[in-house]
């Protein structure tokens, strides 16, 4: 586990909002030289604290008007291997996120679609036909915000 000091937390707060900031700019804002900031960013990346960078996109401008979260319960536990389900569901291009969870459902999926009709097609032809799939619950995403979390 990596321990953070206040400067690391300040750097992470900046990069969570804007990962493209150069080391010079990050350093200026947190009171470090460019090379000191660069070393810290590299350390946070190498330690896996920064697990990746992801560009935000305007999904509706790209023609994806609908994001739906599905809760999926497997029907035949034990008979169908979890790996088979995971492999098949991960291969669906419209499924962006697959999480194995404990609770009311076994899996949580994030699905993008062009519109509700397109979503229905994905649900019927791709999701409902997955090996072992049982009950499915759908919730249409209306809004989403990410928060910096306990970095304060």
């Amino acid at each position: 586990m990596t321990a953070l000091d206040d400067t690391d937390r300040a750097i992470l707060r900046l990069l969570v909002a804007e990962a493209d900031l150069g080391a010079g700019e990050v350093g200026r804002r947190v009171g470090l030289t460019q090379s000191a900031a660069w070393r810290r960013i590299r350390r946070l990346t190498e330690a896996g604290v920064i697990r990746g960078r992801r560009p935000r996109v305007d999904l509706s401008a790209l023609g994806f008007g609908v994001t739906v979260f599905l809760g999926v319960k497997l029907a035949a536990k034990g008979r169908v291997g979890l790996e088979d389900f995971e492999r098949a569901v991960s291969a669906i291009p419209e499924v962006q996120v697959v999480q194995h969870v404990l609770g009311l459902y076994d899996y949580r999926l994030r699905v993008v679609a062009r519109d509700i009709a397109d979503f229905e097609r994905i649900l019927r032809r791709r999701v409902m036909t997955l090996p072992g799939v049982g009950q499915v619950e759908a919730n249409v995403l209306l809004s989403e915000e990410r928060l910096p979390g306990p970095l304060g």
Partner: protein
Amino acid sequence: MQLDDTDRRLLRHVLAEPELTAAELAGRAGVTPATAWRRLEKLRDRGVLGRTEAMIDWRALGWEVEVSLRFTLDKTNPRAFDEFLAAAREVPEVIEIQTFLGRVDVRLNVIARDMGHYQEIYRDRILALPHIADIEALMLVATVKDGAGLPL
């Protein structure tokens, strides 16, 4: 904005592999670096492509528990959503807030250092949020797929 095949190809690669340099990206998309740069600038100007965000691996920082809390709110109160969301934003361990159309109204993604800590957050902060009619919890076991890729 109208996208052509080159835009779509570039976006597909940017979303699938955000770590690529501009030159690598141009190579994958089969265009010159100058074309790639110009197209991406245009997508940024039009707001199709937004800022890049760094993603934090909370487990690497010792936050071992991640729970998806799904709320149904008491919608007899017209201020229920606004007041609930405002209060949820004040909880530092809430790293994501989503609202839905469906059986679930709001979902909070909550992290904790361990189960004891989670119990504490749940009792002291979550149950204190206003206008809750029902709560369900899904505990994250594993993230199988986490991408931003789009079937462009």
